[in-house]
């Protein structure tokens, strides 16, 4: 099915889910579950907590699907719900050992060019030093493939702030990869 066909099919599922059809809702959510799980896993360690947050996200999406106005993609909307659920989790627990979500508030060339940065080990090592908020941003940009505008809408931060934070993350990674 082409992307237009997928979009029409998704619109039908959204419409059906909004009128209470659970099967349609499940068909809508299932393709997003891997993304939701990995997003949660990027911020929350214990598997039991991840499971609970996945369930809370799905429940919240179900109860509020009626208010989904399709001004954003469904994927963006449900990741936004996950983000709130992770924040709730940290608010309600005393297990705040990693950086909380609110820290978003703080904080084709030559072969040589590619070779210099494609050292997988160096990239992995560089990614491992990112803070929780930085990892979240990297996840939203590179894994969820959200635009800066979508991340801005989700977090409530100005688009320029998202861009400058991403620029800082890239600079941090570049320095780490180059061993500076």
């Amino acid at each position: 099915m082409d992307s237009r066909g997928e979009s029409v099919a998704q619109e039908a599922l959204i419409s059906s889910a909004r009128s209470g059809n659970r099967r349609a809702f499940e068909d809508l959510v299932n393709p997003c579950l891997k993304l939701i799980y990995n997003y949660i896993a990027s911020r929350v360690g214990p598997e039991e907590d991840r499971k609970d947050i996945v369930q809370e996200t799905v429940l919240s999406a179900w109860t509020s699907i009626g208010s989904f106005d399709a001004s954003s993609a469904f994927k963006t909307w449900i990741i936004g719900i996950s983000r709130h659920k992770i924040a709730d989790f940290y608010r309600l627990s005393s297990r705040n050992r990693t950086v909380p979500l609110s820290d978003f508030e703080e904080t084709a060339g030559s072969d040589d060019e590619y070779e210099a940065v494609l050292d997988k080990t160096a990239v992995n090592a560089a990614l491992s030093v990112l803070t929780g908020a930085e990892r979240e941003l990297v996840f939203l940009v590179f894994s969820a493939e959200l635009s800066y505008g979508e991340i801005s809408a989700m977090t409530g931060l100005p688009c320029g702030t998202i861009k400058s934070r991403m620029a800082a993350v890239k600079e941090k990674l570049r320095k780490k990869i180059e061993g500076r």
Partner: protein
Amino acid sequence: MIFTDCENIRDMLPDYIGRGLTESENTTVIRHLASCRGCREETALLIAIKKSVAETQREVPPDILDSAFDKLGQNTRLGEILSSGSVFMAFDILHYVFAEAGSAVRFACGI
């Protein structure tokens, strides 16, 4: 102005390597990359990050997959019946109510 070009192009790079750009945006990026070493290096960095992030993505554990919809519970069944518009809707609702009442009684009696 070269700086502005690079800035604009770099804003487009995540989409260029990710979900895609329009045909004209794609052409703009490719033309720019052909003549700008700095943006080619930036592209290479983003591709490396994207690959690395993709490799760390895990499949959803089976128990989380199986239980993802558990909290929706039985109460959502009513919404399903109401939205079905079935000619048997009244019967379905009665069936639902008795089934729920039966569950409550069984739960209360511990059976």
